[in-house]
């Protein structure tokens, strides 16, 4: 009985620790975004804004009024969404084949995906920088969408083929017995069943594209295509030797909001997707 109680207290403490670990830096950056720019320039140590050092919402209005920052939000949303849709579409086709069909070269596809997931992206920026300038897609949306797609495909293919293995395939066979072709069986029977998995893969793909930094700074040079992470890192404000910490914090919070919303709504799906490839079911 007392041992049980001790265990429970341990678990509660553990939970509190997890909450503090996960949320402290987030709360901190929110708190920082409410410090006034004057206070930050002079130096305003401490977790919360000091008395008289608060800024209200002014950092947020400043950041959203900043043309470059606003453009980068539009870029990030547009590029990430397009890359997600295209990548998940292609991955769905490939994952269906992997989970469902016997074919020569399946191991090759799976191994390629695994290798690409581990690929050091920085080693590609040199040649891509050169190639993209030759093709004329340097500093454009497609110039980022293409690399995002190829680097999210492995993740999407994994997640999806793990989901597809769980689908009751007898239904597809029933459709085929009733005279449907392989393609019809895929489109009419499997797609509706697979939708939740596809959705999970889409969220994870979106996270990747939203988070990318290496391609974002290497393959863009103006606000025509520069995504949020790159824009934040180049955001120096009026005085380059004293970064406007509170303004940057406000920008960072804005960039984090879409992710937090996704996490709040789709927590269960994200966890299922992240761990789909980790253990054999």
């Amino acid at each position, binding site marked *: 009985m007392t041992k049980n109680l001790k265990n429970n207290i341990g678990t509660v403490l553990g939970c509190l620790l997890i909450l503090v670990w996960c949320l402290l830096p987030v709360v901190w950056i929110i708190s920082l975004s409410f410090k006034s720019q004057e206070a930050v320039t002079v130096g305003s140590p401490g977790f919360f804004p000091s008395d008289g050092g608060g800024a209200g919402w002014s950092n947020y209005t400043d950041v959203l009024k900043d043309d470059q920052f606003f453009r980068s939000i539009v870029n990030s949303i547009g590029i990430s969404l397009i890359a997600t849709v295209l990548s998940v579409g292609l991955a769905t086709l490939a994952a269906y084949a992997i989970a469902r069909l016997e074919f020569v070269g399946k191991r090759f596809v799976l191994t390629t995906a695994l290798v690409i997931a581990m690929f050091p992206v920085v080693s590609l920026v040199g040649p891509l920088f050169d190639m993209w300038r030759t093709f004329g897609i340097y500093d454009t949306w497609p110039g980022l969408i293409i690399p995002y797609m190829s680097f999210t495909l492995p993740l999407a293919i994994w997640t999806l083929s793990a989901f597809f293995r769980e689908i009751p395939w007898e239904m597809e066979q029933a459709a085929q017995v009733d005279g449907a072709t392989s393609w019809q069986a895929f489109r009419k029977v499997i797609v509706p069943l697979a939708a939740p998995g596809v959705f999970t893969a889409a969220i994870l793909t979106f996270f990747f594209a939203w988070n990318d930094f290496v391609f974002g700074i290497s393959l863009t040079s103006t606000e025509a295509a520069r995504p949020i992470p790159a824009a934040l890192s180049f955001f120096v404000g009026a005085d380059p030797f004293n970064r406007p910490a509170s303004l940057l914090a406000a920008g960072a919070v804005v960039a984090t909001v879409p992710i937090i919303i996704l*996490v709040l709504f789709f927590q269960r799906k994200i966890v299922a997707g992240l761990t789909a490839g980790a253990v*054999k079911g």
Partner: protein
Amino acid sequence: MSVDTPAKHTARAPRPSKPAESDRSRAENSLARKLVAPALILMLLVTAFPMLRALYLSLFEYSLTAPDDRNFVGLGNYGTALSDPLFWRDTGNTVMIMIVTVAFELVIGFAFAMVMHKVIFARGAIRTSILIPYGVITVVSGFAWQFAFSNTNGFVNSWLPFTPDDFNWFGQYWSSMVAIMASEIWKTTPFMSLLLLAGLAQVSEDMLEAAKVDGATWWQRLWKVILPNMRAAIMVAVLFRALDAYRIFDNIFVMTAGANGTESISFLTYRQVIEQFQLGIGSALSVLLFLSVLVVAFVIVKLFRVNLADARQEG
């Protein structure tokens, strides 16, 4: 291909003639190829092709500031890179970051996974909060921690008992590294803990109960039952995270920009190619980076005898 490639689902009624069977599997093969081709081509287009191009460019002395005088230098760029102490210093930094962060993440992540496995109340809230660091952009995490450690606007100095309030964390090598690794560990531990949680769920409760009845202590159950049974999950998590940590770039770029010798190998490559337009030596560094990732992967797979089929989830 051979005629008798077995079709996976043999449940359908036996057909009288053999050719029908092979038609079927041939159709399956060709459908599969059509379905896989677009994804495969795209993946190779942006990785294999540029990598081959990097291999080619690495043999030249080639700078974008003077694109017309491109001289073939053979393996000269590799010689330059490998004999440069900068290359070895940055590789050392990267390996150190990889080992330290993965070790911390494994221990903390496992503790988190144990708590999450036990908890019955507020499961959703805990999971939601553990996903937040995973979702936060690395650049944002870098900024958050940089400002947290800052001696003008941060709170770390005033919270830690052993640092003076004006201690400059980014003034020298070791403390800068601590700050970089703090950001890296904070951001990626949740991912590790979710992978480990999935592994923990696979450990049979009956086995644990049996060990308990036989009088095994908590410590013994951990080392003799739980850990051996989730070996596969641990190894996959370590492999993924280690290779990810070896690519560290964002945090260093944002937090120190490589000051005080905190550069990583990815950062060095980026600096050569994008900032200094040295495509020749930059490409050589790209190839070396790629090869070193392969070496790291190989060492981990061999050292811990990771079963790649687990990672590829065949079976």
